[in-house]
């Protein structure tokens, strides 16, 4: 793998970590909401954000896969 390709993979891995981070943090928030009997609307919002972040993460992985011919 050339250094340009290396850099591109690193960037895509970095891009995938951002939605993963949102997934992790929103899951933590849901846990706190459930533990503290908070309004469920806030929990639903967090779940929606997790679903969106999953899609974003999948898109980034798709780009990574396409770039390296493993589709």
């Amino acid at each position, binding site marked *: 793998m050339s250094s340009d390709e290396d850099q591109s993979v690193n960037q895509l891995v970095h891009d995938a970590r*951002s939605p993963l*981070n*949102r997934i992790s*943090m929103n899951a*933590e928030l849901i846990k*706190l909401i459930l533990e*503290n009997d908070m309004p469920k609307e806030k929990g639903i919002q967090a779940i929606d954000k997790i679903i969106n972040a999953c899609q974003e993460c999948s898109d980034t992985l798709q780009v990574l896969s396409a770039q390296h011919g493993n589709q």
Partner: protein
Amino acid sequence: MLNVLLVDDDNEFTDVAANIIEFLGHHVSVAANLKEAYEWLDSQPFEHILLDFMLPDGSGLHLVDHLKKIQSKAQVTFITGHPSVKGILAEISGPQMDYLVKPLQREDIEGVLSKQPKIKPQAKTSSIKRHFGCLIGESAPMQELYLMIERVAKTSANVMLMGSSGVGKEVVATAIHKASQVKGQLVTTNCGALSKELIGSELFGHEKGAFTGAVAKKEGVFERAEDGTLFLDEVTEMPIDMQPNLLRVLESKKVIKVGGTKEIPVNCRVVSASNRTMESIATDKVLREDIYFRLAVFPIHIPSLRERKEDIPLLAKAFLEELNTENGCEYVWTDAQLERLSNFDWPGNVRELRHSVHRAFIMSDPKGKEIQLPHTFESPFSLTKKQNNNVTAGQTIENVEKELIRITLEKVEGNKTAAAEMLGISTKTLYNRLHAYGDFAE
């Protein structure tokens, strides 16, 4: 409860992280870039900063530099999603700094926030007064300086700071900014470090496409210092043909970005600094006369450390206190060490003193409490100065040797064992030389 600043450009992440931090019982403020972070830091103190490494307008390390400049004692935790940055962060992190790698969990945040704070012991033990939050010294020249800062802070006059290298011109600029209690921030730029091509863009900003590489519109330092203070360091090193552009801004209080046509009104106090003497400024023609009178409405001479020797023990104690706090140590000075520090000339001023204290701190026995001072404080610069003064072509080796022995003895206050060690000869040889020269006979 801690006052936490969260700096990250991922809005969705900051939303949810802010919620969690509040859940943990802390107060949180959010900034999406460095500019917003600086504004928060100017408006209130923070105990902890959670900081993304890469931000749209710079690196998280810029913010760390800014924290040092404003002498913030906030604990910093870098957050990064880039595995390659992890290594760099591990190297720079210390007692005041930590790092986390995304994706984060609640325990990670809880963990770094519960490490707070190592700052309290210093607040308890520090008996050294910092005037305007940053200046140390109780000598008469410093009292005079404080009075000048206090007076000029009440006005909007431009200030020119003069003094030799290492006297603390940037610290005085910070003091003026703090004493002025202005809304805007303190923005610093070094006119000597910028090329002729870049200085216009740095000072006045540029429009997108103004020149090759101008991929986006950029704000200049005048705009960034709006309602605040602009510190132009080494102003006398600015290319003379750029000075008319600066003069126009100082006179009209309006800037035009490079490649732009629109005049943008600006409002900030300009504090400039130079380590040249008044004579050099006039004779070397480094600054246009009209610019000088615009910048030096209120000139301030900052005393050298030689002129305020009584402040040396106070400064040495303050520097050691800072190092002790940063590293969790408890070193103390002895009276004899403070006297030795006070007797040295410090040609590099406060900067050189701070450097020597830091070096001594590193060299000290980690198991002991006493700091280990080196045999000599000479820096390459002070040695060069001395040699230049004393050695000229045509002198005999005997004369140069005699002079070297004389100044070495002077430096160690006549202690022949220390002088011999410094000269790299035995004490017996030194006595023989002294005997031969006669001049130094006791």
